[in-house]
């Protein structure tokens, strides 16, 4: 099946710093979604992005499907950005979804 790798696995940032998280996938996908899992365990939708670039406030995402990767940018990080960021790819029929193992982000004041 399709493989999804995220990097880096762990990241510590000073508040106010910028960061880039990467998601590589091994085969063609129909779509891609980024999630943030907050410290309470809730999974929050960030972006649903098969290709191109989307922005939402301090966060933006770019997917280059032909090169099989997606990037999540976090600017001016805040302590509330802490948690785990997952990418999930959609492939095959019936919305088969495969998750990466996540990037754990800690933003310190």
């Amino acid at each position, binding site marked *: 099946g399709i493989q999804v790798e995220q990097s880096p696995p762990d990241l510590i940032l000073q508040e106010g710093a910028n960061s880039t998280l990467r998601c590589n996938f091994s085969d063609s996908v129909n*779509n891609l*979604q980024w999630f943030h899992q907050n410290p309470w*365990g809730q999974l929050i*939708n960030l972006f649903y992005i098969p290709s191109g670039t989307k922005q939402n406030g301090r966060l933006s995402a770019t997917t280059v499907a032909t090169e099989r990767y997606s990037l999540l940018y976090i600017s001016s990080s805040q302590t509330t950005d802490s948690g785990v960021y997952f990418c999930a790819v959609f492939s095959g029929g*019936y*919305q088969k*979804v*495969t*998750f990466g*193992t996540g990037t754990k982000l800690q933003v310190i004041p």
Partner: protein
Amino acid sequence: DAGITQSPRHKVTETGTPVTLRCHQTENHRYMYWYRQDPGHGLRLIHYSYGVKDTDKGEVSDGYSVSRSKTEDFLLTLESATSSQTSVYFCAISGQGEGNQPQHFGDGTRLSIL
């Protein structure tokens, strides 16, 4: 966010007992999913449903069964729970449209099997 309710939110039970987790949605979405989350593995798909009475296996389906008798409810059953099934279980839903639709997640059920 999307109207998804998982119950119970926490459960502790003993090995060998049957366990049923419920996912209820108010969005009338076609697709529903059950995942488990374990350290080092991210989220892994257990079973999914693409309509009432239409279900299929995911990558970690052994030891689990599901049922969907109504659009709004998707049940996950552990017939005889084992300690390896201790995990956090998430339900997700997605709608039907042109191409894939985004998934929305419930708040999870923390299940401990002693």
